[in-house]
């Protein structure tokens, strides 16, 4: 997994509340293999493209200044709805490495950490201000620093965010959560033994 320490990159504002995962990546595209080119072209597919495949020029990620965005600044309840891992892949394969929002769909939020994307929660007033700045100066960059846990806006102001220490450790070190958990093999085995005794009627694997 990629490490995430600090990132300075173009950020794209997305103003809508409740952007659901059917908009992030339509369900019908979830059966595409992730292989060559990956899921990047599916990110916001139906908002970015017309039925005939042509780009919708107004959509933020189609505008020249935001094409290379690695950061998205959104609003309330971003990437909610269907829990689809493809929503994270679509962001990642497009090149997005950090998403800043007031709140997130739970599953998306957790999946980001495991796939090399840093999700950052900031208060509504801050995300609104960031989006305002980004609209005023298309193509401007933000800095997201996971070590210091700050976002630096286009005016140089720093906004602190909090992040779960386990998830932070995984991202900073580029470590897989599976490997970290399996270091606890002994504890898991001991638990399983006790658990099988207390739930004797469950046909759990021996």
């Amino acid at each position, binding site marked *: 997994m990629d490490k995430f320490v600090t990132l300075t990159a173009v950020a794209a504002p997305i103003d809508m509340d409740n952007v*659901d995962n059917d908009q992030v990546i339509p369900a*019908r595209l979830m*059966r595409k293999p992730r292989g060559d080119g990956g899921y990047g072209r599916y990110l916001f597919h139906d908002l970015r493209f017309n039925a005939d495949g042509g780009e919708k020029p107004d959509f933020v990620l189609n505008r020249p200044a935001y094409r290379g965005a690695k950061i998205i600044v959104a609003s309330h309840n971003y990437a909610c709805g*269907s*829990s689809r*891992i493809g929503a994270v892949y679509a962001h990642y394969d497009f090149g997005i490495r950090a998403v800043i929002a007031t709140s997130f769909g739970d599953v998306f939020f957790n999946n980001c950490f495991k796939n090399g994307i840093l999700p950052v929660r900031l208060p509504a007033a801050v995300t609104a201000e960031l989006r305002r700045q980004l609209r005023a100066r298309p193509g401007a960059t933000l800095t997201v620093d996971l070590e210091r846990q700050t976002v630096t806006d286009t005016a140089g102001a720093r906004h602190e965010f909090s992040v779960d220490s386990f998830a932070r450790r995984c991202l900073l070190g580029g470590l897989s959560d*599976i490997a970290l958990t399996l270091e606890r093999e002994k504890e898991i085995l001991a638990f*399983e033994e006790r658990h099988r005794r207390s739930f004797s009627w469950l*046909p759990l694997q021996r």
Partner: protein
Amino acid sequence: MSAPLTLFEKIWKSHTIVEDEGGQTLLYIDWLLCSEGSSHAFEMVRRQGVKVRRPQQVFGVADHYAASGGPRMEDVVDEERRNMIRVLERNTGEAGIRLFGLGDPYRGIQHLLGPEQGLTQPGVIILCGDSHTSTQGAVGALAFGIGGELAHALATQTIWQRKPKKMRVRVEGRRPRGVSAKDVILAIIARLGHGGALQHAIEYDGAAIRGMSVEERMTVCNMSVEAGARLGIIGPDEKTFEYMRNRPYGPKDGAELDTAVAYWKTLATDPGAAFDKEEVIDAARLSPMVTWGNSPENAVPIDGIVPDPAHEADEQKRAAMERSLEYMDLRPGTRMRDIRIDQVFIGSCTNSRIEDLRAAAAVVRGRRAVVPGLVVPGSTQVKLRAEAEGLDRIFRDAGFRWGEAGCSMCVGMNGDNVPEGKRCASTSNRNFRGRQGRGSRTHLVGPEMAAAAALTGRLTDIRDLAVEG
């Protein structure tokens, strides 16, 4: 005496392996279900060079891409989709995981299979990749969707979780005639809002919940996630214990069941246990509900009207309403009952159990649908039961199509789509843009209301239709 605990906390505690310093808990997973979307997770497990830790505690389910047109691989609509199912067959086969595949007598939607098989029991933790795992909390299990954490779950049979906050929704009083469990949960979501339960686990209680059958409770728990909740759960009671009897993976009748029931009785939320948030809803004041927009929170009583964004003070919400109305091609002030529909879908993990099909069949019995309708039982067991009761004939005689078990038009992945610009009265759980197919317009309703809409060709108040017993 230890501090009073909620049902949720008791299950959480009994499955805690490690309480980590970072505020995350390592929980043990009793059962894990995975459907076609699991291919990425299996791939990740392989790439990390590890194995599925407890294959006998994992089950594969072919539900999203399974064709409603027939039981075989050839019935699946195209090569791309057949491939999704083949990959699931290969992944489960290689790992030694039991697959409820296409031709299986227990084929069906994962959230029906869990309880039907008796895997989902009071007090266990059962997880699936899919968000509507919350359905299964209806029997008093901790059940939630894990999406991208599936690889970790397969490899370790555990999951790191931050403890959600606790919310209780008490539905008191009695439901009036015509108000289904679906209407109750739509009303709850309308009240809480789309993000109103974010980062919470909801426990449902109150007289109206107690009065529901276990299957109705599943409908309620199913849509918990539409209010943003991590999961929904309902304390097990006599109805639950009865429901659990004689299930393939459940406790055997006799001493084993007695031991289990004795334990299940200890699970109820202790008197005085604290919740972070409480809501009380009076069931007696509820009406049959229907949605007008692209979020399940956009639910109004069927005798209501399409709301006017001009009356919404919040700018963001107003903009969202305007976008929804444009997408749904609706004008503020339109009476919901005047909205014409093009087709009807009865199915999905929200409303495809035998009681749902019986309720819908009672509405259509001896009548004719005036728009195309599709009925898809949630599991093959439900389908067989319905056929034994003659429900398929009732639907077919009324002009409905009768399909093989699966997710079908809930999400349109198996080829059952709502065409662009068409309007569907659907018993599923999401009315998002494009959910049932590109450009599809979805109105969420309960099974009786869906049946009624098929008969009249518009959204219809079930209370206006005389239903033969």
